[in-house]
């Protein structure tokens, strides 16, 4: 697809859409938009080689789970284009970033803005925790830590079949608390799966708060390298650093870009809630109104007119 916006514009658009959604719905995954916007914008707007979407711009309603009696079932991967050998694949490993991922699909023209209106509505496929039938998703990742393993298996298989397309994973740093992440990296290294790429949002946040107050994970880069992968640090908000990082040699090894991010980048008002940022819910109408005014100003948009919203 042809780029119509710069990646910076896409990133700003992601923050604006998630902001508007959170204000209208009295809360949401705001902080993930702050930390992840440039990474997802870069993936979709520049780095990933994807075909045109194969699913309707306005998502279809939930059409049942996979079963032998549901022959028309399909995943939401069609928003990333067809699964052809030459194209890249992307898994959003922390499915809690779904709102941000949906906003990205809209910004890059792969989903209609109406899709976000369906977010977390009963009967909708645009689920709060991205399901495999949700737009842009291909596998379930709501149980954290399984994404990189699944991608490793897919990448090994694609390499075996001689497919040039890469397999990408969008990861979160909280996932490295799960032992499976390390099992996956050692397996990918052992089997020389170098068509496997990840970019990890290192925002040092998890559900209970700052990761250091929950379970310290130490030096992620050193650990990845000890387990056989290649890791490179970047500033998550500097696109040129991300662009350079993906060129890091990683022969016979998976490449994991560690994106050192700010959980309130672009929305400085969120700093006052630090470190409770996993899900932002407003404590009062007054707080909601103040956030609306302040963050709108930070994002250079008008405040959201949410009268009539819930």
């Amino acid at each position, binding site marked *: 697809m042809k780029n119509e916006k710069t990646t910076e514009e896409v990133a700003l658009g992601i923050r604006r859409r998630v902001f508007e959604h959170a204000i209208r719905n009295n809360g949401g995954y705001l902080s993930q938009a702050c930390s992840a916007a440039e990474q997802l914008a870069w993936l979709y707007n520049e780095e990933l080689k994807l075909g045109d979407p194969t699913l309707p711009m306005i998502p279809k309603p939930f059409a049942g*789970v*996979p*079963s*032998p009696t549901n022959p028309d079932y399909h*995943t939401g991967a069609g928003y990333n284009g067809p699964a052809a050998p030459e194209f890249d694949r992307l898994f959003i490993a922390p499915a809690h970033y779904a709102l941000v991922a949906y906003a990205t699909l809209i910004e890059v023209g792969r989903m209609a803005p109406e899709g976000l209106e369906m977010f977390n509505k009963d009967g909708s496929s645009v689920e709060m925790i991205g399901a*495999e039938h949700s737009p842009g998703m*291909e*596998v*379930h*990742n*709501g*149980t954290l*830590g*399984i994404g990189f*393993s*699944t*991608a*490793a*298996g*897919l*990448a*090994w*298989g*694609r390499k*075996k*079949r001689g497919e040039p397309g890469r397999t990408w994973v969008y990861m979160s740093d909280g996932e490295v608390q799960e*032992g*499976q992440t390390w*099992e*996956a990296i*050692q*397996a990918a290294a*052992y*089997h020389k799966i170098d068509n496997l790429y990840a970019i990890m949002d290192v925002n040092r946040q998890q559900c209970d708060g700052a990761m250091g107050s929950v379970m310290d994970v130490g030096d992620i880069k050193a650990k990845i390298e000890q387990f056989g992968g290649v890791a490179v640090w970047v500033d998550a908000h500097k696109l040129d650093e991300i662009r350079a990082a993906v060129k890091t040699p990683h022969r016979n090894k998976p490449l994991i870009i560690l994106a050192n991010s700010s959980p309130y980048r672009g929305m400085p008002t969120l700093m006052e809630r630090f470190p409770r940022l996993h899900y932002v819910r407003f404590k009062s109408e007054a707080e909601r109104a103040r956030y609306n005014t302040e963050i709108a100003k930070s994002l250079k948009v008008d405040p959201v007119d949410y009268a009539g919203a819930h």
Partner: protein
Amino acid sequence: MVEMVSKPYARAFEAFAAGNPDILCLSADLTSSCEIDGFRDRHPEQFLSLGMAEQNMMSFAGGLGLAGFRPFIHTFGVFMYRRPYDQLMASIAYPRRKVRLMGFLPGVTTPGGMTHQSIEDIAVMRSIPNMTILETGDATEVESICEAADSIDGPVWCRVLRGSVPRLFDTPIKVGEMRVLSEGEDVLVVTAGICTEEAMRARAAFAKAGLSIRHLHLHTIKPFDHAALLDHVGSVKHGVVTLENHVTEGGIGSLVAETMADAGVGKRLVRLGLKDTYAHGGSRAYLMRYYGLDALALVNGIEDLMDEDFGITENDLATARVDDVHSIVKAEAL
């Protein structure tokens, strides 16, 4: 005397999988223990060693399925669902990946004790949507398990016997069917896996004592032909006894109970198996006796159902086969 077949899985898997590039052989550090060491050596291009890291292995297999491969995962059954249950659900069962889960050491077929004995796997698998469940009870079923499993459009849980396995049947597994081993009219006996051989011994003794047994052997536990079972239940006068190498909750005893209750069948049912207990380590014969999974336990169960003592003693049962724990056909004593 029954024919004993040495390592039927080793030959069957290689014959089935070799040369089919879409089939992959996955192992988790139990390669010779699952009789696939020869396959690894002769077909390395189809073999993937994933180490003692089952959580990754399950999701990795899901990814291979997404890439169009049909992975056969080989390890001890317990290691494929207890620790990596979440991965089994999210990466394999939900998306209906064509992953074939070859679970070795079902129930008390190992002296490895609690950590090695999958005693509740059927209960777990029966409750997983999209899962198919097959269980082998003899060498012919082991020889046909790969083809049967690979015929399923979705994930398949298989209870696989290894080592020296008796040959009881001469036809392969036909998925979805059940074997009718005798067509008696007094009591229906339903068994699966290694318990079928036990029931065959008890059956002969009851025939001499004048009680006619209808005996079903289940190799397909899910999907299940409820109507066929109900026909057999309706064909006997007194009731049903089930015997399984598994806890009595959620296994074939429960399957029969649910089928009868759903249809409003009022006959008595005696469920034999592990009675809400773990087992411990020991030889198969010892464990089957100690926990009531053998021919003698079935005799007692049928006597309980009939409320009658048939005077059958251990001597009336065909000599029980005793496995040497340290048999040369096993890689280690487990």
